[in-house]
Structures are given as C-alpha cells and as structure tokens.
C-alpha cells in the first residue's frame, strides 16, 4: 500500500479547524471502520472496505469444501474398517480367538461395501465413480485413496466371503487361497486405508487442515482404531486384553492430540477451538480421548461386572468420539475456508 499522500484540503473546503479535524476522522473511519477518538462514529461506518488489513471486503479467498454429509461418515467408516481389517489379520496370524477374527473381518467387509456406497452417493451417480479408475496419480491422495479402497474392499470382502463359505460348506483349497489372499490384501491396504483420509485433507489449501498435515494421519488412525475396538467390544469381545490395550493406546493418543490442539497458539487452529466447530471438536476429543481412557483404566481395577460395563461405555464413547471427530474436522475445514485472514497472512 502506498503511503497516503498529504493532500491539503483546499481553502474552500476548510472553514475552520473543525473541518480539518473532520477530514482526518473520516479517513481514519474509512480505513478502520471505527475511530479511536472518544464518542465519534461517522454515519454509515464502517462501510465495507477492501484493504490490506481487511482483504477484499472480507470475502473468503478460499472455497469451502463441497462435500456432503457422506464424506465425514466415509472417513469414520473407512477408518474403522481399515483398522478392523488390520486387527483381524494380525489376530488371525497370532492365532487369536476365531470369533474375534471373524467379527473383525465382517466389520472390515461391511466397511468395504459401505465406503464406496458413500462415495458414490456423494458423487451423485454410480457411473461417476468409474472416472476414478481412469488414472492413478500418486501425487493425489484422493487417487491413491481410491485405489487403496479398491484393493481393500476387494480383499476384505473376499476374505469375509470365503471365510463365510468355509464355515458353511467346509474348507476347500480355492476358498482357503481366496481367504488368505483376501486377508493379506485387506491387511496390506487396510494399513493406509485406515489413515489416508488424514493425508487427504491434510494436503489441501485449507489452513486448519494443512497446518495439521503432519499429525492428521496418526490422529485419524488412532480414531479408526478406537472405533474398530469399540465395535468389536460391542460385538461382545469385552474380555479381549488386546482390544483393551489397543483401545487404551488410542484413547491416550487422542487425549494427547486434544491437549495439543487446545494448547497450540496458532490462529489457523481457531476453527478447532472457537465457535460451533470448536465445540464439536472438543466433544469429539473428549469422547475419543479422556472418557474412554478413564473408563478403560477403571475397568482394569473394577470388578467383573463393572469391567464389562466400563468397557461397553468406553466402546460407545470411542465410536461416538471417532464419528464426531471426523465431523468436527470437516466442519472446521469449512470454517477455516471462510476465514480470509489466514491465506492472506493477516492477523
């Protein structure tokens, strides 16, 4: 901005010092929308301003995400399904409870079906999903994610289906091959699938997202684990020590993440702390972190009956927390996109 030239108001203009004073006040008012002096407020002010301090009339520079409600839900489902697949496979390889393996597979498989359905619903038409398969772009998290989703969905669905057929009609070589290959694929793709959505929103122009690009995938992975553990526990696996450990780990990480968000002083993080989006983030954080952590710790020391209850409540809290966390992040993205200060480097 160039310096405001000193233009002397013309003689005709100034009949007294009062006039001069008024002109000064006017300038100040226009530039700031208010005047520092006592009791002075020029009529109409503040009028809309375009300036280095206000940006272009405060019109958002960035566009808000155009995603519909399916997308946060997809983040949630995908995260849980991916984590469940990984847990199921590892449980299988380590020879854990068969029922747990089977349930984990079913969660993964359900996610494998629901996830594409949610995406298609967001796109509006099934055929549009086909476009995703035209190319593979490693530089696009969305492209990587879609191919991961395809690998994961195929694997998880195959494993679950083959397992189901085996249990129903007895083992056979082809079924075993499919089941094992499917499980291996769901493990392989499940690992990135459980957290790539963090990369997806992290690598964007939205300040609140890209300022957290380094933490979001871990955060989303923890959230996914926490939801998957919760689901398995609700399916009855409330005695599994492994789930307890994983759940506790995720809850502790989420507690730390919540503290990190609250404590960092960075204007770009405001949407996570202020307004509606701030409260949603907090709610998600509390339900994902401290609440299940405390409940799980309590279950360790409590009696048998309490233990079950505590773990059930921890599970419910984790699932709700995971879902709300995803909604919170997407919501915060909207708020962040509307804030013109960040991309303009103001404030």
């Amino acid at each position, binding site marked *: 901005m160039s310096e405001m030239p000193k233009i002397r108001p013309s003689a005709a203009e100034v009949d007294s010092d009062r006039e001069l004073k008024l002109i000064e006040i006017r300038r100040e008012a226009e530039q700031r929308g208010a005047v520092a002096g006592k009791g002075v407020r020029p009529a109409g002010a503040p009028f809309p301003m375009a300036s280095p301090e206000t940006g272009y009339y405060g019109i958002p520079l960035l566009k808000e995400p155009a995603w519909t409600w399916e997308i946060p839900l997809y983040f949630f489902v995908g995260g849980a399904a991916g984590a469940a697949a990984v847990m199921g496979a590892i449980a299988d390889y380590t020879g854990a409870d068969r029922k747990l393996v089977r349930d984990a597979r079913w969660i993964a498989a359900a996610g494998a079906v629901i996830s594409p359905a949610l995406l298609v619903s967001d796109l509006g038409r099934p*055929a549009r999903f*086909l476009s995703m398969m*035209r190319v593979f*772009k490693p530089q696009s998290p969305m492209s990587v994610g879609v191919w991961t989703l395809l690998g994961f969905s195929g694997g998880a669905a195959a494993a679950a289906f083959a397992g189901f057929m085996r249990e129903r009609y007895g083992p056979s070589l082809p079924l075993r091959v499919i089941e094992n290959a499917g499980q291996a694929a769901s493990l392989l793709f499940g690992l990135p699938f459980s957290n790539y959505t963090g990369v997806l929103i992290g690598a964007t122009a939205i300040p609140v997202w890209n300022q957290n690009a380094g933490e979001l995938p871990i955060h989303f992975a923890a959230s996914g684990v926490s939801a998957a553990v919760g689901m398995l526990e609700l399916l009855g696996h409330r005695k599994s020590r492994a789930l307890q450990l994983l759940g506790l780990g995720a809850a502790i990480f989420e507690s730390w993440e919540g503290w990190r968000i609250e404590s960092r002083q960075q204007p770009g993080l405001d949407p996570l702390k202020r307004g509606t989006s701030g409260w949603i983030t907090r709610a998600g954080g509390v339900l994902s972190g401290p609440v299940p952590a405390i409940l799980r710790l309590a279950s360790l020391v409590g009696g048998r009956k309490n233990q079950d209850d505590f773990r059930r409540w921890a599970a419910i809290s984790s699932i709700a927390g995971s879902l709300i966390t995803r909604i919170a992040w997407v919501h915060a993205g909207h708020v962040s996109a509307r804030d013109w200060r960040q991309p303009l480097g103001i404030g």
Partner: protein
Amino acid sequence: MRSNPQPDRIISAQKIFLRRGTLEASLLTDLLSRWPLIQQLRTGADGTGSEAMSEHTRKLRPKHDGAEVTPSICPYCGVGCGQLVYHKNGKLISIEGDPNSPISRGHLCPKGADTYELHTHPGRLKKVKYRRPYSKQWEDLDLETAMDMVADRLWESRERTFQETRDGESLMQTTAIAHLGGATLDNEENYLIKKLFTGGLGMVCISNQARI
C-alpha cells in the same frame, strides 16, 4: 454464489453433458477404447497431461467452428462497435466483436458482449400481444390480423382528426396521432417512418430520444 439454473437457456459444454446417459456412455467408451491408466503405465506419465484427455477434449473445437459469419453492428450505444454474428442452419451460435472495425478493434463492452443473449433469451416476444379496452389480460393475435387492425385504427383516427386547411391556408396535418422512437432503429426504418407518417399521412407529432 447463489445458483439460479436456467433450464430454458441453451448452454454449451456444461449442460450438454448433464443429460443422463451421455456421461455414462462417454465414460465407458473412454475407459474401454483407451484407458488412460494403460497410457500412463506405458509412458510413465503422471496423469495430468494429454494421456488423461478424453475423446471429447481431443476433438474440442470452438462452438462456432464451421459456422457462417455475418458482419453486424452493436445495437446498444452510439460508439458503433463492429460485431460478427456466427450462425449455423438459421440459429445463432455466438456474437462477438469484429477485429476489423477501426473503432472497436474487436472489443465489446458488457452490453455488446451480451448481444447473443439479447437475441436468444426466453423473455423475447414471438407473437403479437393484444389487449382489448378495459381488459385485464393479454391475448395472442395473428400478425396479419393485427396489421389490419392497426391500419384500421390509424385510418379512422386520421379521418376523424385530419385538418386540411386553417384560415384558408394549407395545414394538412393531424395532431391526434403520434409516433415515438427512432434512436434504436435503422436509418432506413426512420426514413420510412418519416416518409409515411409525415409525408403520407400528415402526422406531425413525431419524436424520438434524440435531442442534442
């Protein structure tokens, strides 16, 4: 930005592909005939270049490609910008500035740039509208009938109000029928108006927007 879709406007690329089925068909052909992914694998391209172009994109041409061009002049202000009217099979395709014009050098203002819409927008009149005395509504009228009726009204009013002389001097006028308008019309049109109304019918109340 609020969105106001206009179903009745004929709109290019965007809207054409809105039609259900077209997209699917085009996508499938595209996928089956030359899968960009295969090209990518073969050339190591990253999916942002020509390998990712669809048939439609490859064949893309300006919408007025192969159209007839008629030179014209902008209908709005007095600057007199040159326009080129592109049309195919009797339908307008686009109207843009004529680079040869020594005045406008191909440029147009927002009004001139909107001349195509001026001609094609859905609010244009296409039928004669007629309102009977004391009526509350319009009705449609056949063009030839309307012309006959207007000729009748004009003739009758002229008969009623014409003054051939005043104080024995030639007057030859009627002041009860008037005309207004002309600055948006062609010289030839104004010429016929003045010739018929004043020279033929003795109407003196002739006026238009033009003053100084």
